[in-house]
């Protein structure tokens, strides 16, 4: 409904009298506040509103002091009887909705007939739990019309005022359809025999929206009876609404009511309606199948299955599955043998929700002998089947269904069927390679420490490489789950000490590499001296595959002494991989390792590997080592790739070096991938250029009880030039470079300061582009150039401020406030039209010479 009844009245005067907020000014006395409130209009200083809100909050927080609350309510209500502004009265009604009592009802009641303020009077009155309110609303009913009357009817209905039934009955018969519709809805909320009688009388004579409202209200009356355990009395109402000719949604709702209220017969109602001509009614019937309680209901619905056409059987099977009642199991089991494929599949799916160990045979035979879709449905249901002894029942089928063995083993693994471990150790030795591999995979998931010796025995007997790989993975996986205190490598080391044949020794070394703890590393290092060359090679490979940086030094040592070119490449690859893992190394240690590797690298292949190692080190020194190779044609592209990978992360703090490097790469590289990546770094450099990355940080600063908004204008020591302020360096990270104050300082309702110095070769106009989470105030050379007391997330450049850079050093100071959540800032300088700024450089460590901020 459209109404613009208030709007124009306020538009022009409100704009005209917009004044700056005096937020934070000293609180006025109560009388003064209320006097100010009377004059309030939209666009004016909201201080009177916030002051009164505080007064209301004070009295509500102190629940025991009723007199203070009553006094405030009376003072506020008195405003309603003055010539106070509309806005003031609207605001007062809001407050009386919180603290008003029966005493304020008379004054509020007078406003009910005021078309401008009636809504707000109801806003307050509707909240006051006193019968005087209902009487006032009823009195206003006959004295209002149109939308105002509709509002009053809505509130009477909301309050379920039984005394309003008769007057509402008159409204129901009135000429205004909106009023009649509201009256119908209100009668539905109030309910009772009299309301139902009035509504019933309207059912045959109404149409359209009014009829829908009457029918819905009549439904509500029926629901009221059901809620009072008088379902039998509700039945005639539902039945009347279920008749053909009523709107489909009403018939659907009536069916739900009939099915629920009629006890045992509800099932028959639902079943009969499965074939109603109205789709909405059919859907409601299916809904009933899912919600009517009791095993007997389940059995009755299930018994209906064979009588339905296949598409509806599918839907009913889904509904029975959703009921989750095993009473449907016999019928669903029978449907699983249906000749209709969709029915069969739906039944197999339903068995997964309803069945237990008793349907394992059926599901296994369907999985073995059915179509691919049936087989899939059966296997899925085997995965989810509940009940006692189900895992064991499935494990027993491993013996009977050789063709399905691998699939059933996967099912057991998915079921976390620990009890199947003994059966799986038997199938692990199955002559069918697929079965054996699946068994080892499952054992890797399910077996525990006690099974490791048995798994090692199985590993010793395997015949093919594929099975051996699966067996090694299983032993590794189980061993890794054993805590370090329980010495996870011990069973494997014990097996190794027994001196097994060469292939098994190799297997055990690979397993030790998977376990990756200190005893395992010692054993693998010892195996480097094994008399068998094959075993020694396996030990080298195990080292190269080591899962953590503990083997780095051992790899480097072997690399130094090894003369075998293949082995050296293998070791280098291992080093590259391990250097990429998290470790406790300092940057200096990392750099030293890289330097050693470069020194030891021989020939083109090794240099290539070494370059890929350097590519993992984000350090200018690494770049210095790589750059000479850009001139070596044999490794140029590898050097170029390494240079790009190093330059990328360096861009934020060493922009010039990164740019130089990328430009060199683009001059020499012919490789499309390298060039593409180099261009990406270059674009990012251009996009992020001129951002300040190096800052000094001071803070956090806060004042007890004050919010971020309030401390925005509190001058903390960095603003006053207090020499005792402690500054520390901080670097903006990422692209664009952002200072993450949440990580650096954390907390809420506080502020921090960032400062840096900008050197400009000449006096020039510039644009300071700021991003902040939350508020930001900026000073340039001591003068405030920007203030935005915002509560927001950071977007780079969200505030753009014209500034003038003086020739020489310029001091930039930012204050960043933090309400809640994230806390961050970023800044850059551009030309006034947003291009790169020439002749400037930044230095966060420049000596303080500028005057304090004003």
């Amino acid at each position, binding site marked *: 409904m459209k109404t613009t009844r208030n709007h124009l009245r306020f538009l022009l005067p409100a704009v005209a009298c917009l004044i700056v907020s005096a937020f934070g000014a000293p609180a006025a006395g109560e009388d003064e506040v209320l006097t100010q409130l009377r004059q309030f209009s939209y666009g004016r200083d909201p201080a009177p509103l916030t002051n009164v809100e505080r007064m209301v909050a004070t009295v509500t927080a102190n629940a025991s002091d009723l007199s203070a609350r009553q006094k405030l309510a009376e003072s506020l209500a008195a405003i309603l009887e003055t010539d106070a502004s509309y806005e003031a009265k609207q605001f007062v009604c809001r407050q009386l*909705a919180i603290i008003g009592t029966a005493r304020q009802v008379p004054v509020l009641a007078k406003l009910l007939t005021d078309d401008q303020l009636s809504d707000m009077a109801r806003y307050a009155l*509707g909240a006051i739990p006193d019968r005087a309110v209902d009487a006032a609303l009823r009195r206003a009913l006959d004295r209002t019309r149109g939308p105002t009357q509709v509002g009053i009817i809505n509130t009477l209905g909301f309050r379920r005022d039984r005394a309003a039934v008769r007057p509402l009955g008159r409204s129901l018969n009135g000429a205004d359809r909106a009023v009649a519709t509201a009256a119908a809805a209100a009668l539905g909320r109030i309910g009772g025999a009299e309301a139902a009688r009035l509504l*019933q009388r309207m059912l045959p004579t109404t149409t359209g929206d009014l009829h829908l409202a009457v029918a819905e209200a009549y439904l509500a009356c029926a629901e009221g009876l059901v809620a009072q355990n008088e379902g039998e009395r509700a039945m*005639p109402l539902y039945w009347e609404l279920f008749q053909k000719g009523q709107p489909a949604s009403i018939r659907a*709702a009536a069916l739900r009511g009939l099915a629920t209220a009629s006890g045992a017969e509800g099932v028959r*109602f639902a079943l009969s309606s499965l074939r109603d001509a109205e*789709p909405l009614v059919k859907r409601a019937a299916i809904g009933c199948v899912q919600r009517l309680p009791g095993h007997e209901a389940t059995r009755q619905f299930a018994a209906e299955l064979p009588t339905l056409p296949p598409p509806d059987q599918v839907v009913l099977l889904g509904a029975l599955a959703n009921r989750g009642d095993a009473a449907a199991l016999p019928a669903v089991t029978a449907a699983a043998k249906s000749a209709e494929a969709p029915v069969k599949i739906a039944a197999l799916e339903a068995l997964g929700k309803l069945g237990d160990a008793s349907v394992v045979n059926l599901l296994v035979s369907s999985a073995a002998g059915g179509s691919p879709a049936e087989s899939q449905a059966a296997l899925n249901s085997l995965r989810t089947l509940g009940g006692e002894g189900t895992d064991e029942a499935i494990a027993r089928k491993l013996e009977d269904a050789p063709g399905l063995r691998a699939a059933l083993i996967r099912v057991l693994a998915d079921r976390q069927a620990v009890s199947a471990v003994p059966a799986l150790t038997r199938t692990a030795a199955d002559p069918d390679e697929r079965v054996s591999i699946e068994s080892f995979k499952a054992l890797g998931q399910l077996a525990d420490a006690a099974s490791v010796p048995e798994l090692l025995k199985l590993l010793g007997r395997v015949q093919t490489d594929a099975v051996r790989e699966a067996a090694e993975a299983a032993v590794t996986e189980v061993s890794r789950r054993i805590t370090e205190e329980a010495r996870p490598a011990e069973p494997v080391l014990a097996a190794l000490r027994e001196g097994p044949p060469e292939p098994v020794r190799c297997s055990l070394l690979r397993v030790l590499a998977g376990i990756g703890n200190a005893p395992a590393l010692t054993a693998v290092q010892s195996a480097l001296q094994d008399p068998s060359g094959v075993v020694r090679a396996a030990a080298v490979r195990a080292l190269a595959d080591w899962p953590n940086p503990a083997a780095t030094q051992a790899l480097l040592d072997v690399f130094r002494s090894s003369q075998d070119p293949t082995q050296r490449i293998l070791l280098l690859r291992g080093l590259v991989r391990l250097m990429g893992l998290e470790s406790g190394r300092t940057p200096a240690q990392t750099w030293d390792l890289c330097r050693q590797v470069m020194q030891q690298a021989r020939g083109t292949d090794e240099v290539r590997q070494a370059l890929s190692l350097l590519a993992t080190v984000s350090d200018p020194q690494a770049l210095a080592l790589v750059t000479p190779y850009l001139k070596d044609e044999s490794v140029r592209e590898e050097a170029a790739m390494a240079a790009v990978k190093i330059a990328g992360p360096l861009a934020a703090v060493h922009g010039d070096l990164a740019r130089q490097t990328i430009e060199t790469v683009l001059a020499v590289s012919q490789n499309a991938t390298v060039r593409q990546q180099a261009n990406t770094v270059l674009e990012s450099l251009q996009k992020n250029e001129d951002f300040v990355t190096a800052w000094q940080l001071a803070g956090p600063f806060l004042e007890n009880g004050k919010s971020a908004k309030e401390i925005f204008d509190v001058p903390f020591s960095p603003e006053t030039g207090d020499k005792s302020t402690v500054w520390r360096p901080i670097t903006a990270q990422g692209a664009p470079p952002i200072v993450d104050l949440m990580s650096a300082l954390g907390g809420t309702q506080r502020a921090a300061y960032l400062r840096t110095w900008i050197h400009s070769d000449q006096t020039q106009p510039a644009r300071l582009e700021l991003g902040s989470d939350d508020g930001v105030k900026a000073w340039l050379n001591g003068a405030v150039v920007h203030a935005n007391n915002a509560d927001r997330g950071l977007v780079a450049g969200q505030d753009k401020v014209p500034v003038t850079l003086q020739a020489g050093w310029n001091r930039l100071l930012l204050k960043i406030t933090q309400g809640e959540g994230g806390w961050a800032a970023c800044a850059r300088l551009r030309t006034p039209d947003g291009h790169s700024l020439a002749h400037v450089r930044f230095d966060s460590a420049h000596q303080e010479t500028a005057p304090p901020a004003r």
Partner: protein
Amino acid sequence: MKATNLNRRQFLNASARATMTAVAFPAFVPAAALGRGGAVAPSERFVMGCIGVGGQGTRGMAGGIWAPEGGFIGRPEIQVVAVCDVNAHNRENARRIVNEKYGNQDCATYHDFHELLARQDIQVLLIATGERWHPLLSLAAAQAGKDTYCEKPTSVTIQEAEALRTAIGRYGTVYQAGTQQRSSQAFRFACELVRNGYIGEVKEVIVGVGGPPAHKTCSLPAQPVPDWLDYDLWLGPPPWRPYNAAYVGSWMAYRDFSGGEMTNWGAHHFDIAQWGLGMDGSGPVEIIPPDGKEFPVLTYRYASGAHMIRDPQRLQREAGVDNGVMFTGTTGKVAVWRYALRTWPEHLAQVKLKPNEIHLHAADNHHTDFMNAVRSRGQPGANIDVACGSITVCHLGNIAYELGRPLRWDPAKEEFVNDAEANRMRFRQMRSPWRV
């Protein structure tokens, strides 16, 4: 009351005969309802209308982070035929997107939702207005027998959510709240770990979300209403105030329109807390606003003894994020956020549930979950009982903040215990003619 000419026996007998004759009759639902793969003829698709097609509505309709398959119009079983918005720019933009998708000019536009709801051909709805409209529109959709996917938050007050729950129960339509974390594997798994006792008995839940809206009332100056906006219909049930662009652009900052971050993100993360605690359809028994002493942050107490706090800073310290949920039990912890999960001890993250353990409603796409329920007439994950319970938790927090004192809540009766003042805040009278 007049006696009705009721002959139930006759009705049932006639029905039984119909069953016996088993004459052919149409299937319950379109062919698409049976999940048939491949192309679906337009005539066999579910017909959808979209109300509220601004940012979130367009993303839901045509694709976004939670609907990578291209939103509802990207689904072969859906045919969007109409869009409705009080903002003409949004309306025209949505129409263009739909028509481009289908390669025709058939998408109808409405600025008044009544007209869209009156269309008999529309079976399913996407509602993505501001939450002041969510309960009214979802309720009207239920009255019209239409299934509804409605973005969160479910309501602005507790009573509105309850009224919607009554209507959905009455008409038996499908309702899915747009709390898509219910269809996320990580959130589900976190809750399954908690529900199956992997962290022991739950002692504390930390919820990382922002607080209530910044403004209780409205004081902004009047501005001319733009010609592309039906402002009165935009405003809807809250008290009247003159148009100001800030309301339309930042309605979430105003208590009349929204519960602020308490309901914006709270609808997600308090919902996950409820799920993990096994409190769907129920709630806490006490709500304590920050008191600067024993309770520095908003605290909820559940009957089980578990505490739930809103404390993004602590979540940041403990889990490394300030937006998410963390459950702490007697033997372990699990934290979950978009889109990651962290457990203490770490190996809990590798747990695989056995068939006989508690498995929560499994869905990996919130739109798909909704459509599955539309087909089966079952319940989607974020059904109205779930949505009503979770949004009530958010509203309870806002009421505690507003009253500034501890409140006791009876989740069964859905009312504050012996606290008339707090009970008033469960509802608000709506501007005429609106009601729920």
